[in-house]
């Protein structure tokens, strides 16, 4: 049963890799088209190269490698190997952490560096299923204090003044 699950997981991983190679191929084609279509300020500089020369070479390299990967993966698809380990789902952690980081960065303008950081800590602890209120409040406020001392008092970083100030 466990082996069957790992084989399924291996097949899923193989499909993910195939999708990645195809996506990388399409992205590199789009990049090359974009590079060709741009009105570059310097189409020929003192060295005889366009500003787009190096980006085009690297995009072409990505195109060749990802196309090769897709072809090789397509041939291997029928011989799927069991995945060595089960990996935990990443969707929710990505949404929680990524969303939290972006919201906290935006919060710099609306609240304040200290308050938005404390709120982020509180939110992430709560999302991590920490339910003890003393711990939640203590760590959130403590991190806010650490940030105030380190970034504002010691480093003198200028943060946007949120509407609370």
């Amino acid at each position, binding site marked *: 049963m466990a082996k069957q699950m790992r084989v399924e997981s291996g097949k899923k991983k193989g499909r993910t890799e195939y999708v990645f190679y195809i996506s990388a191929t399409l992205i590199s084609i789009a990049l090359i088209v974009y590079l060709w279509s741009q009105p570059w300020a310097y189409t020929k*500089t003192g060295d005889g190269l366009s500003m787009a020369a190096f980006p085009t070479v690297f995009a072409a390299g990505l195109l060749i490698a990802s196309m090769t990967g897709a072809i090789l993966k397509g041939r291997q698809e029928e011989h799927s190997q069991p995945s060595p380990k089960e990996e935990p789902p990443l969707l929710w952690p990505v949404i929680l952490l*990524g969303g939290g980081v972006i919201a906290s960065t935006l919060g710099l303008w609306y609240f304040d560096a200290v308050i938005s950081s404390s709120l982020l800590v509180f939110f992430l602890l709560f999302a991590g*299923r920490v339910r003890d209120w003393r711990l939640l409040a203590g760590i959130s406020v403590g991190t806010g204090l650490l*940030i105030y001392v380190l970034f504002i008092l010691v480093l003198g970083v200028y943060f946007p003044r949120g509407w609370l100030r």
Partner: protein
Amino acid sequence: MFAALESALSLALAWENLVGVVAGVVLGVSFGALPGVTGYGGIALGLPFTFFMPTVPAMAFLLGIYKGGMFGGAISAITFGVPGEPSSAPTVFDGFPLAKKGKPYTALNTALYSSIAGNLLADLAVIFTFAPMGVLSLKFGPRELFALMFVCLATLVIFMEGRIIKAIIGTMIGFFLATIGPDPIMNYPRLGFGIPELEAGIGLTPFVVGLFALSEMLIQFSESLAARGKGWQLETTEDLRQLIRDPSPSDRFSVRDWFTTTWRETLLGSGVGIFLGALPGPGGTMSAFTAYALAGRLSKNRGRMGTGIPEGVAAPEAADSATVGPSLIPLFAFGIPGSATAGLFMGAFMLQGIAPGPGLFTDYMDIMLAIFMIMLAGTVANLVISKVVMIPVFARLGLIDARILIPVLMPLMILGMYAIDNRPFDVLIMVGAGLLGLLLQRLEISLAPTVVAYIIGPMLEKHFRRGLILSGGSVTYWFASPIALGLYIVGIVASVLLLRRKKT
């Protein structure tokens, strides 16, 4: 000469200089160890204070921060999986897994001893050979530096562990991302994709921190969520204690253990760091990655690199720290800062009314000799302070449950990235790099080629295009220099040998 030595010794041993170097080391290690705050930031912060100090204590203070920051970056990399500096990124590969195995003391002590050894060897190299090394560094023009980048590219072969296509894809992604930003010759914005902030380019620190740290945090956070299905309450002091794991009983690592296990990797890393550190461009990050890559092929335990072994910590740490002294050689000898940090040191000299350059050793011999002695004193101070204070504290912090640690680290990283240039866009770059790192890790694509290509890319383009301008399109120009020719041969031979060694 002896009179100058005597005068330098009395200068170096003055209490204010020793206080300066100790204060600098404490500040440097602390800043480097905090995720999101770099040692470079510490030097920039300390620079204005030196205006009110005499020359030698000012330099002692800044050298202390520089040396302390190098090891501090490793503390953060090992304890939290967050490279405190871009140059600490390869330390994450083995240091963090070693700490996760319950052996934070082993990892941190290996990093400390290797860092001190690399630092000491580099200081001695600077003291005894700074004149020829300075002359050698001046012989590196565009074609020699391009050839050097070719050698660095050859080391990428090492990361191609059976999945060449994946490594090439990672490399090309790194190269392409490096071309976003100002064109290296005309300095004209390129590849902004309609986003004005992107026209300034992708900063190295947010990119590396996102790629390594944020992606690792996402993985740890998801593992932690999956491991504990239901919420828990803190009701007794025993619950609180459970938040901090106990270190493994076998987590003992003496100087003797370090020497017998990692002397090869430490020597290798020191050699790489001293050589690359003296040249303008490569710096600590390139040195650390090159040393890690070479150790991955030449180490006795090469098959286990990346799984959490001391050898994988020793090589990059020794290389990174070995760049400290040599990176100042072009500044001391010719007044040319070879790195951003050397530029800050140049500013510190200027604040003191001293113009770095060839006259430095004739006009201020006693001061320069005192600075060399203080470099050695700084290494000793770094060893004592890190061993007695920093390692015990941070080894314990690293054992705290990920569900508590990650929420606390996140705002530090966000504000640290913001504070680099007061640019919120850097935080978004960190998030984007984190998602890219997560995708690459899930697809089993090594992150190292992406970062190495990202660092080499702009230098490769700049030196190639400068060479084209200088040569007027002549092919013979590229092979007319014996140094460049030698480096091409080294690159080709090394990649062939490394590939053959891999096959066997």
